[in-house]
């Protein structure tokens, strides 16, 4: 038989135990909720790798913009100098025109770069990915099996056939890219990694490549100048 004081002691003990367990569970639950909140915030914001890659690309782009500013300053000075001397610098304007024609793929070009041999069929998205990587590495001109490529050149897969600007191209493919050979080589090695699991792909640096094919621009029918 228990005495009233012994019963009170037992109830007090149970209360303490229950309180401690509740406290422990409460602690766990709160910490778990906080942990989830942190994970959500981390996912919502960008991971360090993304941010680091973005910084790298921004640095590269800003350096290119600085170079563009320097070239424009020089061009403006040459034009101004000719005007002050009472003449004109038509060659400076011609030079700018030639650069824009090269960019649009309208004139044959040559220069250092890389040559990629792909011994098997590839899909449109695989070629697009490779071109994007090479453009990002500073490629200035492309051709694939004798087809000049700029970013507005449609690249599509119809059945198993790859078409470039409406022309069917068949394996083996030879992709030429003009630019800094070392930078293009490094970018190409990464870009063709997945292709190399099923195809023979060879990349070579070239001191001077020639891309002789050109693109004829389409006249504007729907678009008009100005905003």
């Amino acid at each position: 038989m228990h005495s009233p004081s012994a019963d009170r002691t037992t109830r007090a003990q149970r209360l303490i135990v229950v309180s401690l367990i509740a406290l422990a569970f409460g602690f766990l639950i709160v910490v778990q909720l906080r942990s989830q909140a942190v994970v959500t915030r981390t996912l919502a914001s960008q991971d360090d790798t993304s941010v680091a890659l973005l910084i790298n690309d921004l640095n590269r782009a800003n350096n290119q913009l600085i170079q563009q500013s320097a070239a424009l300053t020089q061009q403006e000075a040459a034009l101004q100098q000719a005007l002050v001397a009472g003449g004109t610098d038509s060659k400076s304007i011609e030079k700018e025109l030639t650069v824009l024609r090269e960019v649009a793929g309208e004139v044959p070009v040559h220069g250092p770069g890389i040559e990629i041999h792909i011994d098997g069929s590839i899909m449109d998205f695989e070629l697009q990915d490779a071109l994007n990587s090479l453009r990002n590495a500073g490629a200035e001109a492309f051709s694939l099996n004798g087809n000049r490529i700029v970013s507005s050149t449609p690249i599509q897969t119809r059945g198993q056939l790859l078409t470039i600007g409406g022309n069917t191209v068949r394996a083996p493919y030879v992709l030429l890219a003009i630019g800094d050979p070392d930078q293009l080589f490094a970018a190409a090695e990464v870009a063709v990694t997945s292709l190399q699991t099923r195809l023979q792909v060879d990349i070579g640096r070239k001191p001077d490549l020639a891309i002789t094919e050109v693109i004829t621009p389409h006249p504007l029918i729907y678009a008009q100048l100005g905003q």
Partner: protein
Amino acid sequence: MTVLASVSLATFLVAGVAATQFRSQPLPPSNRFARDEALRKSVNGLEDQNRQLKARVQGLQAQVKAREDESAQRSSAAQQVNAQLDDQKVVVGLVALHGPGITVTLHDGTDPNNPADQSLGWVIHYQDLQDIVNLLWASGAEGVAVNGQRVVPSTSFFYAGVNILLNNASRITGPYTVTALGDPPTLTRALANRDQLAELKSRSRIYGLGLSWLRGTRLALPRYDATFLLRYAQPLS
């Protein structure tokens, strides 16, 4: 009493250890926050610099253009080549355009929160934008812009981690808008063709990813916000 006290103490200690363990893993240490903050400040600073440099390039382009026009008034040779240059600037996207066309809008779908689905199919990727732009070029588009960034001959669709980048590291975020000038019915037919963009349309059904388009009678494309500089390619004489 001794047993109960021991049990409760043990429970508390286990809970405490477990709680510490849980906290220590997902919660970054304070230096991690500082590093993240520093990285993000770097991005903001570089993006500010990027905008300033683009504005400087555009200012210098305007000055060069003024000198070229002045030269054209003095010499017939300069006038002729300057007229060709003006035409060429239209071809490469250095002139703003307007006209009829189509606007395609895309946005991310819903994360299924399914551990078995690691495809990220609910997210718009740079390849999706590339595929749409490629289809629009193939359908006769005369000019294209993505989120206000003009697509020019040297444009690459690329990524830096989760970021989609175009033209000189311009970071674009959803919702994405692709604007193309051209024949609206032709562009619409291409997008509606079920054989085109099949994978994107499938993800749209599965994940609720947004993909829609609208014809327009007067759409505007901005000019490219920088210029072109070639260091390696030379004209073949």
